[in-house]
Each structure stands twice: as C-alpha cells, then as structure tokens.
C-alpha cells in the first residue's frame, strides 16, 4: 500500500470516526457515505450504518412504548381517583334530580303562590349550578383521559395545579387532608398541560398516601407552592406532613417499579412516569425527606415569558 493511499485512507478513516462520534451523541440519522473502493473501511462504515439504523428503529419503538406507558399511567391515576369522582358526581346529580322533582311536585299542585314560584325559580337555579358543576367535572375527565397530542404550549402553571385538584380534591376532603395553594400568579412554562397535570396528580396522590400512612383518618396538610427562581426557571413544590422516608428510599423513589406500598397497592410506576415527564420538559425533579418529617418534591422547569412582558 502506497503512502499516498494511506493518507487518503486516514481522511476517510477520520470522517468515519467523526460520524461514529456524532452517532454517540445521538445523531443517528446521518449515514456514513461509502466510497467506490468497497474496502475494509467501507465494510466498517456499512456495519456502523446498519447498527445506527437498528438503533433508530429501537429508539422509535422505545418512544412509542414510553408514550403508551405514560398513557396507561394516566389511566391508572384516573382509575385510582375514580371512586372519589363517582362520589363527586353523584352529589350534584342527587341535588339536581331532587330539586327538579320538588319543583315538579309543587307545580303539579296547581295553585302556586308568587312566593312559591320564586322558591321554584331559586331551586331551578341551584339545579342549574349543580349541572354546570357536573359538566365541568365530566369535561375535565375527558380532557385528562384523552391521549394528548405531543405538543407543548405556553401554559399557566397555577391553572395546571388547580385542574389536577379537580380530579383528586374529593379524596383529599374525605381523608381530612387540607391542600393549601400558594401559587405565584402569571407564572408560565411551555408544557404539555395534560402530562404536567398527571405529574401533579401523581405527586398529590403520593402525598395523600404518605399522610394516610402517618396519620390515618386524622388527615394532614399538603402545601403546593410555585415561584420564579430566575428569569429562566420556575419551581413548583409539593410538600406533605406525611410519613416521610429515609435516604435510601428517596434515592430510589424515581426508579421504575420501586414501591414502598404493600403488594397489590400500586405498581411503583407513578413517580418514575412523573420523573420521565419532567425530564421530557427539560426540567428536574428532586425529593427531600426524612422519616417522620414529611416530604418535599421540587420540580424545576424552564420558564416561559410572553414576548413584550417584563418578568416579575
């Protein structure tokens, strides 16, 4: 082999090495061009091309598995809150149905006085308000359960937190858990609202379970706070006064299938899905806890500031 030929090989060799380095950092879609020589270097480049195409395929499979895992986690979260939801829907339904029956009975009696007519109108007004309450709950369940588009849109964080409470508030109330919100108004992030809501439902469910574990039906307190950390970062914290956990547990809590709950009570996927969603939004999630002293989960996300608005 001549020296010139070796020089030429080195340039090609370096371009192959570059391409492999690019693949290593995730640029799987660039194929290494083959020369007309069909020599050993081409054989190597071809092998790398085959590998990267295989990787591309596996990656797309992984992404779709992740999407379906998130969707099933969402449905699991919904399943978990469904008995509270049934109660929440049944009460306004009973109120509406009862008031309508009372009004009909009074109207059927024929000789309604002006006062009775006014009372009927008031009862129908109450019925209407409760219908709206039910419609809002149902609309929200549908919105949440729907497989969401992968889009991220500028979203008010306070709104996402408040919506996540619609689905879980009844359970909190029945367990005497006081949920206090302290949300900085106007804070926004570019997120998929339904996925972020799933994050808060998971964290709130987790906090609820920790409180029940520590205090039973005596209840407890959850604080949800949000604040801007800087022009470019926001933080939302979910803080409970539940059982807390030791360092070993808090280090493993975001691992898939890690659960401290009894067998059959949760798959141990909630917090790992939560972790995945936060990462997908370019954020971080951390947990600080001590046994007996509750837990604080902190989510940091890139902040979105509307154009031509000076940040607070």
């Amino acid at each position, binding site marked *: 082999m001549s020296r010139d030929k070796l020089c030429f090989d080195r340039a090609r060799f370096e371009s192959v090495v570059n391409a492999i380095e690019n693949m290593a950092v995730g640029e799987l879609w660039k194929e290494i061009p083959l020369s007309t020589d069909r020599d050993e270097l081409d054989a190597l480049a071809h092998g790398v091309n085959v590998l990267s195409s295989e990787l591309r395929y596996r990656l797309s499979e992984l992404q779709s598995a992740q999407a379906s895992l998130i969707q099933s986690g969402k449905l699991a979260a919904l399943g978990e809150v469904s008995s509270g939801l049934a*109660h929440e829907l*049944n*009460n306004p339904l009973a109120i*509406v149905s009862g008031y309508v029956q009372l009004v009909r009975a009074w109207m059927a009696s024929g000789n309604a006085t002006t006062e009775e007519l006014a009372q009927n109108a008031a009862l129908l007004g109450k019925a209407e308000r409760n219908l709206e309450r039910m419609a809002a709950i149902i609309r929200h369940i549908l919105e949440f359960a729907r497989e969401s588009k992968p889009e991220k849109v500028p979203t008010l964080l306070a709104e996402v937190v408040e919506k996540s409470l619609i689905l879980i508030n009844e359970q909190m109330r029945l367990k*005497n858990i006081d949920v206090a919100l302290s949300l900085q108004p106007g804070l926004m992030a570019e997120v998929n609202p339904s996925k972020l809501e799933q994050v808060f439902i998971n964290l709130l469910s987790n906090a609820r379970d920790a409180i029940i574990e520590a205090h039973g*039906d005596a209840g407890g307190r959850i604080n949800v706070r949000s604040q801007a950390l800087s022009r470019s970062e926001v933080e939302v914290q979910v803080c409970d006064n539940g059982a807390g956990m030791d360092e070993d547990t808090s280090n493993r809590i975001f691992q898939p299938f890690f659960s401290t709950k009894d067998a059959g009570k949760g798959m141990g996927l909630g917090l790992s899905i939560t972790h995945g969603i936060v990462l997908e939004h370019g954020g971080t999630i951390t947990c600080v806890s001590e046994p007996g002293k509750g837990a604080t989960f902190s989510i940091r996300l890139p902040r979105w500031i509307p154009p031509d608005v000076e940040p607070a």
Partner: protein
Amino acid sequence: MTERRRLLVVDDEAEIVELLRLTFEDFDVETAMDADSAIDRLRARPVDAIITDIRMPGRSGLSLIDEAASVCPGASVIVITGHHQMLESDTRVARWITKPFSIAGIRQAVTEVLSGS
C-alpha cells in the same frame, strides 16, 4: 293534633341537607354535616329516624350508626350513599338508598320505616 315525627338528616353536602329538609317539610327535621355534630343533636333530643350519608370527612356514617344505637336506640336508620355498597346484611340499617334518589321513593321509605312495615 299529633306531634310531628322527628328526623335527623346527616350529609356533608349542604345542598343535599337542604334538599332533604324541603322534602320532609311536614316533619320536624334536625340537620348535621358530620357524625360528631349528629351525635350531639341526638344527645340533645332523640329522633324517630336518622337519614345519613356514609362517606363524610372525619367519622363515617357507619361509625355514627354504631354510636347512635346506644345514644338513641329507638331511631330507625336510613342510609343514603353515593356508592353501590349495599350492606343488606347490616341489621342496624332499615333501608339503603343510593344517590341520586327519588323524592317520592325516599318519602315512602321513611313512611314505611316509621310505620314499621
């Protein structure tokens, strides 16, 4: 004139309580929004029947039924529940009614229970 029958209505939802008060306008209706205040009402004055929800913050309706048996042993118990958890075998409960309920149905249930049929 015969004395009006006394009812105690217990539900954590104010509008359900109001609905039942209107439904039983011809009764003497006491109301409570949790088990503890229901027991206070029973201690103050016994009733003929208790209409109670099961799932409430604090003590549940079942715990109220337990205590009511000693505080007000003569009272019949009618349970209104949002859940289809019919515990027909529970002999302390005269009737189980699920939400949403019919006004005529619940009036009939109370009348039957009070007349012992």
